[in-house]
């Protein structure tokens, strides 16, 4: 099967070459408009539990991608599946049920398809302010990747990565025991109109990462899930925000303004992320409760649930406190039956450049990022 292997390698390389050709133009255009942060109009922040994710490191023929993740336990980072997997960007459409719309043309041929998760050695994490150069050693190293099955970004774009402090991270990073591990909304959905605070690492016009956050962003639409039975408003198990997050914020969290609980991770956007019409899709955490809880068990932890303000949750393997305590407050729990379906035939995602950023090496070793 040799010829096919070579052909496919060629295809993969040409794909990345294509991305390389397009990225700088977009970066320049964004810079010219004075966009200074990936979270548009956001304010600088430096929450240590929110980490920069650099994935695809050391894979031949590929540029690493940058995303955002959140420490939801001292050894577990929550992010988007596409951030820690092979993934092909491009033109594609998703059906309301969360599949690639096979009836619509795609470019490239596998646009929107998620490949296999990266091996852990190809994924690195950094505390704020993020990596200071493109070959910066990581603060946290990946040990295992957990993700629900999917072959497309149209569904289940969520992943948990077991991590451990590197020597460097131990030296310069925060005390993990002092981190404000966020609570998770695992027992209820989200509501349209609910306001969230979003955080992400992106890049400014000069190509430097910075963490930024934006408060008071309302949820515009909610996708179908066990908590919300109306289909067609958004992709299944997602919710939609307006202008705010941009490439590089992928995998970044959205927190409830009211309770501070983590509600979802940034997955993909429709339109141009910088436009007022942009629609940004976040994968909800709650519908993946069984996956999340199982993963926590696998790494010897218990999740902190929304409504738990104390020090519950922790390291079960080390005899930590609490964990699955109570139901939490059922924020946004919603159950509507006999609902209309199929308000939209499909969601079209055109040129999903940059669910991540692409690192490029430049003389002097400075980390430089450009919009992908």
């Amino acid at each position, binding site marked *: *099967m*040799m*010829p*096919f*292997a*070579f*052909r*496919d390698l*060629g*295809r*993969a390389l*040409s794909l990345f070459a294509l991305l390389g050709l397009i990225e700088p133009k977009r970066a320049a255009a964004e810079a010219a408009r004075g966009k200074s942060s990936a979270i548009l109009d956001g304010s600088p922040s430096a929450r240590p539990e929110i980490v920069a994710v650099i994935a695809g490191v050391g894979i031949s023929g590929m540029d690493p991608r940058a995303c955002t993740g959140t420490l939801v336990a001292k050894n577990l980072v929550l992010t988007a599946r596409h951030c820690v997997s*092979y993934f*092909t960007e491009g033109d594609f459409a998703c*059906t309301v*049920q*969360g*599949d690639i*719309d*096979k*009836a619509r*043309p*795609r*470019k*490239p*041929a*596998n*646009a929107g*398809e998620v*490949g*296999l*998760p990266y091996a852990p050695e190809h994924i690195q994490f950094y505390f704020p302010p993020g990596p200071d150069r493109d070959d910066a050693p990581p603060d946290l190293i990946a040990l295992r990747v957990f993700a*629900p*099955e*999917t*072959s497309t970004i149209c*569904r*289940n774009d969520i992943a948990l990565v077991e991590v451990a402090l590197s020597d460097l991270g131990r030296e310069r990073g925060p005390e993990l025991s002092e981190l404000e591990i966020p609570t998770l909304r695992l027992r209820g959905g989200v509501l349209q109109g609910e306001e969230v605070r979003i955080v992400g690492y992106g890049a400014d016009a000069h190509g430097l990462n910075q963490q930024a956050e934006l408060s008071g962003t309302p949820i515009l639409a909610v996708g179908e899930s066990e908590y919300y039975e109306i289909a067609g408003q958004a992709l*299944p*198990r997602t919710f939609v925000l307006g202008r705010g997050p941009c490439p590089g914020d992928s995998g970044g969290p959205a927190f409830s303004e009211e309770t501070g609980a983590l509600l979802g991770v940034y997955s993909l956007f429709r339109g141009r992320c910088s436009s007022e019409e942009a629609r940004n899709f976040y994968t909800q955490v709650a*519908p*993946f409760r069984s*996956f999340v809880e199982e993963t926590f068990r696998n790494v010897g932890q218990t999740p902190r649930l929304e409504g738990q303000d104390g020090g519950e949750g922790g390291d079960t393997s080390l005899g930590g406190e609490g964990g699955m305590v109570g139901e939490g407050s059922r924020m946004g729990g919603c159950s509507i039956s006999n609902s209309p379906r199929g308000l939209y035939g499909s969601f079209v995602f055109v040129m999903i450049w940059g669910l991540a950023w692409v690192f490029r090496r430049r003389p002097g070793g400075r980390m430089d990022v450009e919009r992908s």
Partner: protein
Amino acid sequence: MRLRPRSRFVPGRSFDRTFVVASLLGLAYASGCSLLYDLGTSQCETDTDCRLKGGAFKDTVCEANLCVSPDSGTGGQGQGGEGPSECATNAECIDKNFGSPYICRSGSCVALTQTPECPVVLGAGQDLKNLRSGDPIVIGAYSYVDPLAPRLSVPTLNYELAIDEFNEGTRGGLPGGAGGKLRPIVAVVCSGTNAPDLEVSSEHLYENLRVVASIASLHTSDLVATFSAQKASRGAFFMSPLEADSTLTSLEDDGLLWHLLASGPDLARGFPPLLAQTERFLDRSKKLKVAMIEARTPFLSDMANALYSSLKWNDKTAVQNEREGLFLRLRTESSIETASPDTSEALLELLEFEPDVIVAVSSSEFVSLMLDYEAQRDGSKEPPFYLLSPYLFGRHDVKETVSGLGLREHTLGVNFAAAEDSTLYDAYLSRLMRANKAVDFDLSGSENFYDAAYYTLYSIAAASAGPLTGARVAQGMQRLFGGERSYEIGPSDVGELVALLRKEPETRVNLSGTMGPANFDAETGARRGQPSVFCIDSSGFVQNAMTYDEKTGQLSGSPPCVPGFAP
């Protein structure tokens, strides 16, 4: 006869040999079946043993040495089992697992995919419609799986086209599903190259999913190991899109293992007339010196052995020429079996021997050997004439090397002959390209994968009534050739042929593929293949540059890349 570059032959690639035979596979899943008779001892070795018991065992299959009722390769019926059922329908399982492809079997949800070994599902339809509403027949498939884009490979796209056409042609699947549902074909694709973990993938396919039929694009040793590991417990039907070799055709396979491509000796028939014509073409005043380089891999060794006894030049056999110092047989490691094959000794011997003709019964390691030889041989002398194996057909590096060395007029090769009538092939290629417009790699010359998928699907359709087993599928395969009525692979005949096969269970047909008529050897499971000669011109490989006459054993035609070569 039209000339067009195409290969239906897929040479092997280098990869690590990490596969360990899954000797314990058979033990794992007996509990999932309905146990008829458990004495705790071996009841059977094969399905035949069970059938011979008669009575209640008539429709059972042998799993882990026990005769059990098969519930094979299906989903959708969530019954049986003890304790509370997790599911009653596939749709429940899909919804419980975030829209992922699952089936409900015996009250339990079973994932179709297994990451990273088996990440692709074909035939499930938009939004998994065929899984949700049908009673699917799940089959296995081995292919090249790229971690970046698991679905995008030439074999997989061919499987996908065939399965989609078949499901559409049957208007949603074969009849006879539970509750009157249709039975669409759904394939789970596993990685078969680049040091695949075949132990895991075969356990997933044959034990977890209990598939009874597979399209298995695997190298010989992997195919043997995978087939053998599941044979006793599952007894699945295997259709290899690739070549047959003596290791495969001599395997005790109970008629379950079939091959789309011919055997080495079958193909080797093209070399003797080609060498004879080469001798006439070169018209040397001195006696001709021939070197044959054999890469150690089963198919090529079969071919080399056949050539050793059939090649003639200088009016003498190879053995006679060898005695006179006019023949040199060299063996090298193969790139199929070894990551970095060593050809250094062969190079030294070639440089010393200075052959007039090099018969390269080789895989891709020959490219570097050829480059080295041409760089180091006595440049004042004529270059040798190269006769290449099918493993070197269609390779970009071979084309570049031959062209770069200015040896296009000194190079010919033998490959599987294309179908004489290309109508079916042309129509198929057009559909394949239309279905994959945005694919930026060459899809031509891969029809063996498409035909293999279709023969597998029709074999399932032609299986006799009763629970679907590998043995029944293999019997179905026997109904696809040697009949009187002719049908063609492709979407247009699906509805009619499936109806016929179901309505008339004794009827045999003659199912032609894009590669030509279905001339299978029922004894070996291999296709009877015709050789043809290829050459390389400025645009690439020219297949069928000369054709082989079965009756006379001679070649005819004039290869356009080697002026004056015609007989």
